[in-house]
């Protein structure tokens, strides 16, 4: 057994850059590469694609990522763990084998399934967000349980060099290889808690190494065009040292690590995953060298008896329209345009939003501190039950060209189909995971 392993994270969301993962595998001396590519809503959208075509429903970038990585994974003896299977890990595994055959690179792929619990639900279960039955939210599309390390471990026990999953808790993608390599017990809550701290710090990839951190003049980050993604050297006792490939851009410091440690954390003493209820309150971060941070002190309590299930539902449509005003009294003209739209659409939309981009559109206020800007973009959004109704929003905004205030320009209109997400809890025993091994 190894005394220390190195795990890198080469993607922190579905649309992340491709080349940092290649860089990690080529030059990072990794044992494992993790690609975390599955947000809450991504899997519901993937489920819709699978319904239209049963051979689809995996991550849209799967082919490109695997094509760029596969030769380097094999040459450097790096195992890949990824949730790019999305709604269809088996089809993703088949696709990877197809790519491997085409590149004449023999590999073994293990697909982890069992997160799709749509058939286990009646729809009468209570949504955590609303306190009402799930079906009250709208027609249900998908239901995926967050599986834990126990679902990934049997795949790691095979000879597979690529392990592809659907919905699993993000930190479990990292905890599972630690448990596998070091023979940790999933019942050792403190050890799994420390593993979860490691996973949580890595799971958003570039967000640990200076991505989403920079504020020029205050928090400077060098060479962000070539941001390096992070890895962790983890010892058998759980001690972890984070780093990135020498020569890559970005910056890894105690400050970047603190921001990531608390990212999306509710109660820091109870960070709940399928593996453990982790406690981040005793975590200590220290800089052990340039672009090198150590993390210790993660602890935990016994894992919960239930799994969180993420449920996608049809939530209608959103129609949007935008138009710009600039120069003297730009805000005044935009506000006039907004009031015209309000008057014309308020009868037909119960949920209509008018934003002034450049002033109050993202914070919904400017705290009264800022002078009027030189240019303003009016943005209108309305919720609709049909695509035709949603289209009205953009049509009305576009019609401001000849019927609205002076100097409006650059009108754009959009229609989005909306997938909503609610969640519920499922007894752990109701979700059974499986591993399927394919060879190419």
């Amino acid at each position: 057994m190894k005394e220390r392993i190195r795990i890198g994270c080469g993607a922190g969301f579905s649309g992340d850059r491709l080349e940092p993962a290649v860089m990690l595998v080529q030059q990072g001396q990794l044992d494992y590469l993790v690609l975390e590519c599955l947000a809450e809503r991504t899997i519901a959208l993937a489920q819709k694609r699978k319904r239209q075509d049963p051979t689809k429903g995996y991550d849209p970038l799967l082919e490109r990522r695997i094509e760029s990585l596969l030769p380097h994974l094999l040459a450097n003896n790096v195992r890949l763990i990824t949730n790019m299977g999305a709604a269809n890990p088996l089809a993703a595994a088949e696709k990877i084998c197809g790519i491997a055959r085409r590149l004449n690179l023999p590999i073994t792929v293990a697909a982890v399934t069992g997160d799709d619990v749509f058939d286990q639900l009646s729809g009468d279960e209570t949504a955590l967000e609303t306190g009402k039955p799930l079906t009250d939210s709208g027609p249900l599309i998908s239901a995926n349980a967050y599986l834990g390390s126990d679902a990934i471990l049997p795949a790691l026990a095979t000879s597979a060099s690529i392990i592809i999953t659907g919905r699993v808790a993000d930190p479990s993608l990292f905890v599972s290889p630690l448990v596998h390599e070091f023979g940790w017990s999933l019942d050792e809550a403190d050890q799994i808690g420390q593993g979860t701290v490691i996973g949580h710090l890595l799971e958003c990839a570039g967000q640990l190494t200076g991505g989403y951190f920079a504020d020029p003049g205050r928090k400077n980050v060098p060479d962000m065009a070539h941001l390096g993604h992070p890895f962790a050297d983890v010892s058998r006792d759980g001690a972890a040292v984070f780093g990135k490939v020498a020569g890559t851009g970005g910056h890894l410091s105690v400050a970047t690590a603190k921001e990531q440690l608390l990212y999306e954390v509710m109660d820091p003493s109870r960070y709940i995953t399928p593996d453990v209820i982790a406690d981040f309150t005793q975590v200590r971060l220290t800089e052990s060298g340039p672009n090198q941070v150590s993390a210790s002190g993660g602890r935990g309590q016994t894992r919960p008896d239930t799994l969180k299930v993420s449920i996608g539902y049809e939530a209608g449509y959103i129609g949007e329209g935008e138009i710009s005003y600039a120069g003297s009294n730009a805000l005044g003209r935009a506000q006039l345009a907004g009031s015209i739209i309000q008057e014309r659409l308020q009868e037909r939309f119960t949920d209509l939003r008018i934003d002034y981009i450049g002033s109050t559109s993202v914070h919904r206020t400017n705290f009264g501190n800022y002078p009027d800007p030189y240019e303003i973009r009016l943005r209108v959004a309305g919720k609709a039950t049909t695509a035709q109704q949603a289209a009205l929003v953009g049509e009305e905004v576009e019609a401001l060209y000849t019927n609205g205030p002076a100097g409006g320009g650059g009108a754009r209109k959009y229609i989005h189909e909306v997938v909503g997400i609610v969640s519920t809890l499922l007894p752990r025993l109701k979700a059974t995971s499986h591993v399927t091994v394919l060879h190419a």
Partner: protein
Amino acid sequence: MKRKLYDLAHSRAGDKGNTLTLSLIPYRAEDYELLRTLVTADVVKNHMRDIIAGDVIRYELPNLPALQFVCQQALTGGVTTSLTMDTHGKSLSYALLEMEIGD
């Protein structure tokens, strides 16, 4: 002397459904006590009253040191169905940092 939190600390926003999380991390560890004293959950709720409809809970992390604010009903319905531009509320870290403290 009034000072913006922006001058003392940094922050990252996160989202869980309709709940917004905001970290507040002092640049200098010695400013932690000042922030802990002045930036209470009530003060944050009042500063962001146009944004946060629900309660604000504050967690203290003296080891880092940092404060963590969990803000309920702050994302106009949540990532997936909100009509706002920034459905995740990712930009709201800088709304917190707009707060002025001191006299």
